[in-house]
């Protein structure tokens, strides 16, 4: 085992690898190139300790690192070279920033004497990545490496997690110095967890205890805080109906009696309609995204708002808060639960159920069990996969109609099972995120659910799956359209289908070219057998299902409308 404990003279490159080992990194996603070659050369000697996954495009490395982080709760790590390698990371950084995913990116940079000279593959990646990183730094001397990497890992995973970028000049990679490593646990200007205010807990408890129609909205904060049990105890004690944002999905199981479904634009009828009726709204680890709130001026207008979040900048950013509880919900939820009176709100909960049943009659039934004269629906494919996997798979979705359908109809029964691009809505996210997730949770079945548009944005990552022999089930729901945009064009742009129709290549041939077994379903009677083969395959499998070209996702809250103006058709 080659790890250095006592100080010893090594190169900056080797120091980087040593630092990663100290941070317990076992997997890196990356792509070599000129300015990062010394680091790759050092990595070559550590292949027994760190697995490097060679992606096909640096964006793929970032999404893979995100998938890895989201499924495991660990920091995702990626590496890229300077210039185009570094700029290709930007979409993934932005995605990780807006979805609070812990990630450390290391980029090579031209030698320090060349900085600012427009040298070959020089780009100001520290400047470019500043708005999409929690923190970033450029290193020009090897001595700076251990401290910077220690800080990077601390910042990425503490407080509200996020992506961090370290740019290392080539001379800092080559230079030698006395190496020693100390993890970072404190930065004097940085408060990862705001101090607790007991009064706010008392105030919140009083509001909840006196509420007739309390309603909980939960987001990814519950998952990031690893607070599944704490959250359940909280809602169970006071009998609080709880609805999820797409980032909060799978924080509790779908069939939990208090789980009343999905919020927002394509969310369920009950939670959207009753947001307008609740008298106390408790937001836990969520940030009132506009896709969740609809018209903010008419959002939960009868309710007192309690907001629990680790990030003070989220309080009253979108929705004015009456009581804010700052901190990690793993610590704050039990304190609040302790002050709650045991309660059930049976009639109130029943209202959610009734409205959701009404939705099922209008939307769900046809989506999950379409009549035989209709095209295959996305919903019935997801239903079959859900049944076949017992709701226990990790579902990694891309962005668009299939994303909404998967999240609405897959019966998530396990913690940390939903991986998606929420805030940024990055098409092309799913395929790389899925193999990242598989490496982060090798024991689980990982299914990528992708549309025909998004699939082609990172289709080259099939090469990564093939080369690294990663077991990912890839489902493409093909409607030969950019379906969500087409839906909007149909509903709000007089059916003027401006550049949303896709003339696709033969995906079967492409996937087979990567030696991944592939199958295409065009008829309903083929579906059940195909799903069976898809799930039970040893290793990766590609299933393409031709679905109704012009199917729409409902319910839907039109832009600018209040969530209670949700349309069922």
């Amino acid at each position, binding site marked *: 085992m080659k790890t250095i404990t006592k100080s010893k003279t090594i190169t900056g490159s080797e120091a980087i690898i040593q630092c990663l080992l100290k941070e317990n990194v076992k997997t890196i996603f990356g792509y070599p190139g000129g300015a990062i070659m010394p680091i790759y050369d050092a990595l070559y000697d550590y292949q027994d300790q760190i697995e490097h996954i060679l992606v096909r495009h640096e964006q793929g490395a970032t999404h893979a690192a995100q998938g890895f982080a989201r499924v495991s709760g660990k920091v995702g790590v990626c590496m890229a070279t300077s210039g185009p390698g570094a700029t290709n990371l930007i979409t993934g950084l932005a995605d990780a920033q807006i979805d609070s995913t812990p990630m450390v990116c290391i980029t090579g940079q031209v030698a320090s004497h060349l900085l600012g000279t427009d040298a070959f593959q020089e780009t100001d990646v*520290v*400047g470019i990545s*500043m*708005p999409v990183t*929690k*923190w*970033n730094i*450029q290193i020009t001397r090897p001595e700076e490496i251990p401290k910077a990497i220690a800080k990077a890992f601390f*910042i990425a995973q503490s407080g509200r997690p996020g992506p961090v970028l370290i740019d290392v000049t080539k001379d800092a990679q080559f230079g030698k110095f006395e190496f020693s490593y100390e993890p970072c646990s*404190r*930065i*004097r*200007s*940085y*408060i*990862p*967890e*705001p*101090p607790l205010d007991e009064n706010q807990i008392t105030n919140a408890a009083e509001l909840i205890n006196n509420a007739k129609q309390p309603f909980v909205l939960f987001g990814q904060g519950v998952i990031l805080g690893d607070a599944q049990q704490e959250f359940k105890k909280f809602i169970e004690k006071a009998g609080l109906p709880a609805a999820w944002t797409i980032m909060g999905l799978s924080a509790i199981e779908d069939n939990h009696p208090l789980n009343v479904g999905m919020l927002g634009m394509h969310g369920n009828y009950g939670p959207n309609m009753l947001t307008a009726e609740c008298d106390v709204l408790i937001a836990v680890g969520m940030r009132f995204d506009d896709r969740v709130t609809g018209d903010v001026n008419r959002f939960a207008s009868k309710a007192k708002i309690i907001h629990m979040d680790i*990030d*003070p*900048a989220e*309080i*009253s*950013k979108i929705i004015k808060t009456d009581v804010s509880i700052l901190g990690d919900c793993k610590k704050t939820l039990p304190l609040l639960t302790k002050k709650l009176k045991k309660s059930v709100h049976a009639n109130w909960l029943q209202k959610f159920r009734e409205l959701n049943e009404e939705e099922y009659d209008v939307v769900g039934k046809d989506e999950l069990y379409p009549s035989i004269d209709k095209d295959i629906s996305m919903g019935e494919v997801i239903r079959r996969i859900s049944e076949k996997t017992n709701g226990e798979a990790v579902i990694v979705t891309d962005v668009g109609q299939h994303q909404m359908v998967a999240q609405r109809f897959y019966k998530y029964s396990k913690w940390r099972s939903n991986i998606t691009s929420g805030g940024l809505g990055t098409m092309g996210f799913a395929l790389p995120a899925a193999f990242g997730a598989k490496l982060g949770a090798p024991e689980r079945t990982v299914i990528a659910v992708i549309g025909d548009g998004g699939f082609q944005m990172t289709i080259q990552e099939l090469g990564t799956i093939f080369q690294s022999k990663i077991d990912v089930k890839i489902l493409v729901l093909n409607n030969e359209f950019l379906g969500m945009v087409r839906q909007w064009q149909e509903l709000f742009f007089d059916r003027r289908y401006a550049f949303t129709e896709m003339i696709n290549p033969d995906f079967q041939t492409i996937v087979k070219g990567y030696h991944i077994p592939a199958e295409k379903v065009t008829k309903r009677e083929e579906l059940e057998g195909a799903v069976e083969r898809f799930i039970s395959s040893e290793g990766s499998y590609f299933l393409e299902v031709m679905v109704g070209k012009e199917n729409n996702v409902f319910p839907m809250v039109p832009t600018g409308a209040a969530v209670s103006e949700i349309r069922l058709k």
Partner: protein
Amino acid sequence: MEEKKNTKQQFTVNIYTENKIGLLNRVSIIFTRRHINIESITASESEVEGIHRYTAVITEAEDQVIKVVKQLEKQVDIVKAFYHSNENIVFQEMALFKMPTHSLASSGQVEKLIRSFNARILAIEENFTIIEQTGHKEETQALFSLLKPFGLLEFVRSGRVAITKPMKQFKDHFEEVQAAASL
């Protein structure tokens, strides 16, 4: 009160930071992102060793400024940020005026202006004279207008520097942040 929060007015934002490369960029991005123009900005050391202090002047609605200040404080290398309306600070700017020396020599008018505006002469050379005036923008602007007809050659005004009226010292805020960072 609500109405007041939604009307734009001038605010001075004080930002206390670590002394790091690129931090000014990170700060300015937070304003730019919300389409807020920075009217003036100065950076200097603060009374606490190793901590730098930026003073930015913006015109914005107070509820927006509150959000901007939180976004600033969220940055890892920013210790603390504050915003103040003009009533809560004592502030000053400095202007330099370059005048042809003959404009002073040929009449007493320029000298009178210098006296009445409490300006002072920093340097006199054969061709030009440099005049310094400190004051609020309206004052330096007034002197600028009055000097212009006498052949003003060059004019520059610094960003605002400001000291707050409340008595709590930054040092105490800094100690609170450091204590919270250790949780």
